[in-house]
């Protein structure tokens, strides 16, 4: 990797019951995923308030990914169905405001899918690195 290449900051909201365990499994299996991904554990993907996502961008994140249980497998029965609607609407709105749609993503990763977790993160980081720094939603006051 070249020295001058921009290293993105990625925030991953991971559901405690599936994706977070999926990340653990990826680690146990010695699967590589980029260190730029900062995982935030949430009790359910529907815990993620739209404000969290905008706040992440405000504080300098270049991409935000939300990982939850596969539809139908929610620990709380229906949380991820709500996530699906909310995030579809929010991301569509961000796109409407001209924020690159590749910076936001929702993926369903179960606790058994360590390989999928690593592959998803590698792919997402590569996509966001290609886009470069997030200039459109950053707040200069929050940058060091």
């Amino acid at each position, binding site marked *: 990797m070249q020295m001058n290449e921009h290293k993105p900051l990625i925030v991953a909201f991971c559901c405690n019951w599936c994706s977070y365990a999926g990340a653990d499994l990826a680690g146990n299996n010695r699967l590589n995923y980029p260190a730029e991904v900062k995982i935030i554990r949430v009790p359910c993907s529907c815990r993620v308030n*739209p*404000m969290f996502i*905008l706040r992440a961008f*405000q504080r300098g994140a270049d991409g935000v990914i939300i990982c939850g249980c596969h*539809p*139908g497998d929610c620990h709380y029965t*229906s949380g991820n*169905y*709500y996530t*699906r*609607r*909310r*995030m*579809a*609407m*929010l*991301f*569509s*709105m*961000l*796109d*409407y*405001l*001209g*924020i*690159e*749609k590749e910076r*936001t*993503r*929702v993926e369903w990763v179960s606790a058994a899918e360590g390989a999928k977790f690593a592959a998803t993160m590698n792919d997402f980081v590569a996509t966001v690195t290609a886009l470069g720094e997030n200039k*459109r*939603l*950053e*707040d*200069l*006051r929050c940058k060091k």
Partner: protein
Amino acid sequence: MQKITKNQLLDKAAELLDNGTVTAVLGWQKGEFDYDVTPALFENKEELFANFVWNDFCGANFSKYLIKHTRKVEGKILVFLKPCDTYSFNQLLTEHRFDREKVYAVGIPCEGMADIDKVKAIVGDGISSIDCGEKIKVTTIYADAAVEIDGKDVLEGRCESCKSKKHVAYDELLGEEGDVLDSNRFDEVARLEAMTPDERFAFWQNELSRCIRCNACRDVCPACTCEKCVFGNPKSGVENKSPANSFEEKMFHIIRAFHVAGRCTDCGECSRVCPQNIPLHLLNRKFIKDMNECYGEYQAGAEVGSRAPLVNYTTEDLEPGEVFDRRDTDA
């Protein structure tokens, strides 16, 4: 321009006050100028006859005022509702924000309200008086003769794409009932969607950077009825205008639109009150359009007790990625 006259409204209000059906009337009164008509609560007939106003500038939606006044006033309140106001009225009932028993709703027809900025564009500054009849007669301090304007030429933006002339809630109706209209209200959203992301960003940067964070859109919005608002929190870092950055405005408006998504009846009050003329309704309409296309047609407030798309789900919903693809394949 309005088909119903002020005297008809006054007669109805006086009749209901006299026979004890209501103890107060929620109506409009003159503000500083003839055109800034403000909502007012009249608790007796003298006040009512002295100050009540009904003209082409009575755009204010009273639904939200009912929350405050029904808690304060003993007995029933008479409220005049235009067709678009009745949707907000129903939506607030759905959310149990006020007691239906404490309100006597009189539906009144509306021919569309006038936009003072469009009037000023025709007559210029210095408006001294406005007389609304069949035509809008505007007198300015610079001209001897009054200028006559057809109300249809100075319609508010939201009235040009009026979604309904039908009242969805009332105890009594004055005048004739209209129909739900086949409005073109999503055309402008579609025009923005067709732009490239860079063009859209430039458009919104230009619009939202004018925001002065006066919070008028939030305060007037019939869907924004939280007792405590997340944007009232000084620790949030986005509670007021920052001179350094344009981020707050985007944050505020995205989150505000998201909070009312599925509950917004598209009454257009946000854009009407905006002192900077930001087309805020385009954000709300985007959510309405997306929800209509992805989760089925839904009009907030069309009936009491309906379940909004964002507090509901089906197992067959589109994935967030597919919501984008839907547009890409359409284009």
